């Protein structure tokens, strides 16, 4: 449930940073901003000061939908006893290198 917006508060934006080419964007935090352009600048100023990134995504926080925390058990616990889903039952030859 989103709270009614205060007239004087900028909306919140979730910030995702790609740290280098080939990696995916990762959630790093959030910023306040009046619109998406300001959100990107603010994210640049707050989250990339120490060379953390080469690409920024911002998503308005109220556009993010989450699962109901009460359904945690039914959603996630069934996976706990299915260890065969992990690719750990075979050896990768050294020649394959990094995958």
């Amino acid at each position, binding site marked *: 449930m989103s709270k009614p917006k205060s007239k004087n508060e900028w909306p919140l934006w979730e910030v995702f940073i790609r740290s280098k080419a080939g990696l995916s964007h990762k959630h790093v935090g959030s*910023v*306040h*901003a009046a619109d998406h*352009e*300001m959100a990107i*600048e*603010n994210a640049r*100023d707050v989250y990339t*000061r120490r060379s953390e990134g080469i690409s920024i995504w911002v998503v308005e926080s109220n556009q993010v939908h989450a699962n109901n925390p009460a359904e945690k058990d039914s959603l996630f616990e069934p996976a706990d006893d299915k260890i065969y889903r992990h690719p750990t039952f075979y050896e990768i030859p050294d020649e394959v290198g990094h995958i």
Partner: protein
Amino acid sequence: MTIKEALFQYTLRQGDTSLILGHRLSEWCGHGPKLEQDIALINIALDLVGQSRSYLEYAARIEDKNRTEDDLAYHRAEREFKNLLLVEQPNGNWGNTIMRSFYYDVFHYLFLHELVKSKDEQIAAIAQKSLKEVTYHLKHNSDWVIRLGDGTEESHVIMQTAADELWMFTGEMFDMDEVDDILMKEGIAPDLKPLHSKWLQKVKDVFTEATLKVPPEDAWMQSGGKLKGIHSEQMGFILSEMQYLPRAYPDATW
């Protein structure tokens, strides 16, 4: 005046303007209207102080009198500072601060575009590094001028007032003297005259989008800081705060 003396003065002018604007912006630390904008201004302040270090370190080397960049920053008197009067003007409100930076950023950006072609390798290298930083400063502050100029009735009035009040300090950016003449002949310094019309055009473009009026082009302009070290009444207060610690505790380290 020798080339060496001219080059020393020239690097001081660039270094001092960056230092004083950097110091002014750093006064916002912890006082920004939003955490995000607080950090944004401080990032810009740090860029400028970094640029200043490069210039003053080079100036000290040119001077060759056993002074360091810290000596130049913290142990010179007011009249020896060669920064633009514009950048020593008080922070005022957010609009004043943004407008002051915007006027300078437009100039700084155009100036660096020329300075990267300098035949002095050190100066060209500093300009090259600074240009990327200043490209962002200009974008950041242009965006704010547009947002607030074309914002609410109140923000529009604040921005127009700031634009008008600071206008008389903009002419000084294009002042030149013997120092420039000597270095222009050497291919070290750019001619500032052609930058004036480009500067005006960019300001007009942004102001049009921001629904702000450009003050009259033939307005009277205040100068004297960059060429002569004659400052406004603000400068003494800046130096007393900026230089207090190294003067009170000359051996202080951190």
